[in-house]
């Protein structure tokens, strides 16, 4: 491996000393400390920073989309200067709307929902929680971030090229995404950049997953048996396994797509296509091949986005319920079950893609079965707060909000999992509502919960609780106002990915679209409170103690923020699982993993 492996420990002392020289030492220069850092904590913050930039971009795009949907004829000030071709005179062209939609989906799914809860918090907290000094391969870890950043820059570059950004959606269905310029504006260079960006992203996340898995397996501190792993770590571990497989499939898929676009191959492009009055010089390709490869990644990706949220909630909720998580083993079993099942359901995205109806039925059953572990996890949270002593910190509120929106989003899965209902709801706003609730909003709530929970550990200061609570309540109302009505639009037959509703029966819903637009603008604006809170608390927030939430896991055993090597060279020993809340002990009503067993217990 091109990285520094830790040496086997059954070796003579002097060689061990030699090897330890090769280990990374606290960096001195600013560049090594904050930019090209190998410290998992800095890398985690870098990932979170990237996600923050990405989520702002994605939210801005959704604002523009909603504005256009609610008020199609209104010229958006300044837009014509941003994109003279995309919005001549300020009113956006249909293809520009689709480009915004494509970029919104891609940025949110890949660069927010994957980077923040998984790569971001995982990088920051996982080594701390297992009691390691750092990730197993710090330099590969650094590479992982910089490749991901490059992927983001490549994607955003598509906004600034003459062709304009791609418009074939985050699923980039072939042949629209594969035939190139003839397919219309945005399908030239922009789509190629998209494919390159996603390929890079896969590489970055594979390197990340490699680190997560190895660190969890090999670098656990003394006494940290797998049974004592914190639930967030479990979630990150299982997520990395899912990601390892999923991204390993998306990567070649993107390579094939790039080859079809620039290499003249015909993997996804069948014969006899006439586009822009030109017979395309391709033959024999299969558009369904892309769909299979993409969704084999695509559905597990949904769980890559949400499972870290599960873990974060299951770890934070007990801390603020002052009560152990109900059925921790069941919880982990459910995560594993979901992880496994997520690879058996991809076909439910293709019920209507001319796939053999029999296999459609085969895909529908596991899709419905996967709701069982999901339901159980939710019940575990509800059961956990039964008889608890809830402390309504902002982090706790976002956990409870997570449970609520996850239920709302999960329920609609019952409908879409059935081919016979998917016939009616596929490709409508019902689907948009479903996945925004279940993976968009829920995952975002997980991210918020994690931010309010780990911020003290990251920066040594507490976030402002008042601002936090206002932020939560308004966001909670906002997201329901945005996404609940989308179910109704879908039931009524409003088709997603339309830049305007010119059809007679869809025109009737424009008032509802206006309402959603207003709600979206409101909810977006509310996030300013969060940004203000972040910046204010970073510099002016009250100093945080080592363990402000009285939590049990190892990251709270060290200082806030932790030193470069996390535990000052003395990693803690683990005496028990992470679930000891509400049990009287010398520490109070909880027993941290890192305090010795009190006498007489």
């Amino acid at each position: 491996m091109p990285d520094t492996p830790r040496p086997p420990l059954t070796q003579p002392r002097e060689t061990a000393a030699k090897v330890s020289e090769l280990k990374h030492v606290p960096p001195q220069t600013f560049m090594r400390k904050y930019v090209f850092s190998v410290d998992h904590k800095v890398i985690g913050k870098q990932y979170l920073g990237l996600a923050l930039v990405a989520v702002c971009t994605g939210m801005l795009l959704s604002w523009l989309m909603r504005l256009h949907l609610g008020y199609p004829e209104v010229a958006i000030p300044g837009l014509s200067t941003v994109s003279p071709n995309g919005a001549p005179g300020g009113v956006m062209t249909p293809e520009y709307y689709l480009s915004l939609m494509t970029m919104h989906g891609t940025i949110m799914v890949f660069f927010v929902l994957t980077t923040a809860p998984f790569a971001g918090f995982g990088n920051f907290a996982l080594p701390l929680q297992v009691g390691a000094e750092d990730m197993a391969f710090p330099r590969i870890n650094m590479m992982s971030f910089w490749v991901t950043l490059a992927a983001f820059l490549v994607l955003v570059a598509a906004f600034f090229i003459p062709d304009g950004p791609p418009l074939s959606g985050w699923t980039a269905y072939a042949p629209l995404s594969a035939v190139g310029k003839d397919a219309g504006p945005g399908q030239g260079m922009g789509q190629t950049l998209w494919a390159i960006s996603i390929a890079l992203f896969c590489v970055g996340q594979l390197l990340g997953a490699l680190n997560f898995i190895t660190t969890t397996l090999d670098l656990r501190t003394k006494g940290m048996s797998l049974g004592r792993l914190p639930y967030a770590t479990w979630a990150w571990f299982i997520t990395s396994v899912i990601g390892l497989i999923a991204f390993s499939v998306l990567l070649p898929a993107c390579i094939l797509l790039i080859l079809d676009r620039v290499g003249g191959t015909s993997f996804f492009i069948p014969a006899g296509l006439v586009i822009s009055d030109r017979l395309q010089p391709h033959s024999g390709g299969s558009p369904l091949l892309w769909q299979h490869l993409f969704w084999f990644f695509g559905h597990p990706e949904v769980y890559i986005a949400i499972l870290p949220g599960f873990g974060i909630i299951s770890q934070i909720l007990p801390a603020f319920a002052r009560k152990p998580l109900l059925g921790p083993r069941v919880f982990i079993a459910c995560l594993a079950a979901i992880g496994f099942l997520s690879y058996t359901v991809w076909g439910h995205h293709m019920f209507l893609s001319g796939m053999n109806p029999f296999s459609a039925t085969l895909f529908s059953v596991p899709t419905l079965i996967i709701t069982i572990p999901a339901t159980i996890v939710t019940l575990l949270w509800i059961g956990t707060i039964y008889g608890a002593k809830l402390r309504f910190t902002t982090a706790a509120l976002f956990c409870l909000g997570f449970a609520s929106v996850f239920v709302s989003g999960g329920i609609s899965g019952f409908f879409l999992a059935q081919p016979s209902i998917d016939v009616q709801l596929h490709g409508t706003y019902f689907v948009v509502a479903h996945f925004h609730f279940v993976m968009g909003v829920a995952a975002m709530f997980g991210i918020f919960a994690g931010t309010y929970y780990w911020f003290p550990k990251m920066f040594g200061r507490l976030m402002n609780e008042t601002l936090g609570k206002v932020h939560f309540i308004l966001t909670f109302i906002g997201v329901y106002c945005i996404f609940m009505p989308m179910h109704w639009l879908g039931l009524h037959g409003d088709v997603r990915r339309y830049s305007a509703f010119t059809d007679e029966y869809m025109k009737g819903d424009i008032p509802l679209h206006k309402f959603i637009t207003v709600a979206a603008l409101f909810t977006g604006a509310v996030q300013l409170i969060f940004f203000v809170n972040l910046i204010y608390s970073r510099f002016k927030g009250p100093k945080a103690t080592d363990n402000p939430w009285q939590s049990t896991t190892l990251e709270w055993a060290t200082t806030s923020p932790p030193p470069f090597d996390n535990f000052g060279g003395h990693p803690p020993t683990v005496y028990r699982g992470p679930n000891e809340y509400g049990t009287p002990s010398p520490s109070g009503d909880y027993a941290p993993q890192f305090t010795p067993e009190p006498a007489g217990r």
Partner: protein
Amino acid sequence: MTPALAARAPAVPARTGVWVAVLAISMTFAAVAAAMIGRAGAAPDWQQFRLPPILYVNSVLLMLSSGTLEAARARLKHATPARAIGGSASQWLALTLGLGIMFIAGQLLAWHALATLGLFLSTGPASAFFYLFTALHGVHLLGGVIALVYALHRVRQVGPAAAGALGAAALYWHFMTCLWLCVLLLLTIRL
């Protein structure tokens, strides 16, 4: 060097890491193989062609390299005074490296042979998948070459202590050999 680690059986993250990488890379090649089978079934435009014979020579080279790598490891393991035999270990490593580079050169020759037959990436699905598979494997093998160069450097520097690094590199290298044989098998069946 943490006491916690010392307490447990010695863990070699590099080795675990390679195993994880093996899983990922196998998955990637499985996906391409699946794509190839699906694509072959999708349309009647699959025209067969004979694989360039040099591929078999390359395969032998690669298998040899795995052997020499094992020899290097054996030298390293039975080195009592690090310096003495560590040298010959690094010679075996250098030989392995040479074979690996010869393999890659041979693959390029195979490409040339195909090109002279007028078979290019865009000619047809069969040739496309041939170039794709060989290129993918070549890139991953280059990673192995880098790992070997690194291991060589480590062996020269710290002697037997490099066993961990070398073991990991060897694991990866042997995987590359097996992977290539699987790819070759698949290509001979399909093309």
